[in-house]
């Protein structure tokens, strides 16, 4: 993955619009957050291999960026996106990495299913 170039990411988001795509969306503080910092309110969410068809995808803001997908009757968005790549399976992988290199958020779009 490399640091997001917003213009390039916008082109990529456009290229998956109006197609059935598989989504991976994740936010996390890690499972140890409340162990190392007692009282920390550990929250996160995870969704993988849900199929959607978005009509508009946008990257917004300075880094860390926000990425939003407008669905016919709903929304998907992620904030904190810093890095991206298109892998050898033509999947658009976006992630938010903190300064230590720990993933805090991921949003991935693919025309084929992700592994289990």
């Amino acid at each position: 993955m490399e640091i997001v170039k917003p213009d390039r990411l916008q082109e990529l988001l456009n290229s998956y619009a109006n197609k059935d795509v598989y989504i991976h969306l994740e936010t996390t503080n890690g499972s140890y957050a409340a162990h190392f910092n007692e009282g920390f309110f550990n929250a996160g969410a995870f969704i993988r291999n849900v199929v959607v068809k978005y009509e508009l995808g946008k990257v917004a803001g300075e880094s860390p960026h926000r990425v939003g997908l407008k669905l016919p009757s709903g929304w998907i968005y992620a904030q904190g996106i810093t890095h991206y790549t298109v892998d050898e399976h033509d999947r658009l992988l976006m992630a938010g990495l903190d300064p230590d290199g720990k993933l805090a958020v991921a949003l991935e779009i693919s025309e084929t299913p992700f592994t289990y």
Partner: protein
Amino acid sequence: MIKEERHVLVIFPHPDDEAFGVSGTISTYIEMGVPVTYACLTLGEMGRNLGNPPFANRETLPQIRKQELKNAAAAMGLTDLRMMGLRDKTIEFEDDEKMIKLVTDLIEDTNPSLIITFYPGLSVHPDHDATGRAVTNAVGRMMEADRPTIYTIAFANHTAEVIGAPDIIHNVEGAAQKKLNTLNAHASQTVWMMRDMEKRLADKDPEALKWLHEERFFTYRFK
């Protein structure tokens, strides 16, 4: 003094769970000629360390960790490594009976005199607790006379209040290099920690040496 066993079955959810507090024990059993099976439930797919600049992404991390796990097994001399194909952070959401059956099948296949796993409820990560729960539930269903002993790892901050002090302490000084090699095999997870640890070991920090040379377990007691 490490007690002779017929067969040791190690069950943990993540590649590297074995490295920190058990790899010296596993290596020592193998040196003693005790057969050891390590069933690792997931490939740590949800690991957060990707580096910055990143060395991996969400989709490539599992393959990296799978290779690290194989390298770690080799570092311990372990030949019976079983990757069970579940997904990181989902163990507690699997069907409880399916998890008990997974453990029961492993027990029937390996006939262990000892199982090493996490203490359910005192192991911080939900996958750790769920793994320990599956193991203790599976063993609890066996006839008392047939049950293997269960050594557990527990490290929740309130562990001592609930179960006191570890009752099994293994001196694994003789396997210290294998333990370090095992930890280093999981570089994607341990490289930062090991940088600090190797410095502390070089300075003969007593706590670091104790961590390297001593492995501590709580024998699981059925109520």
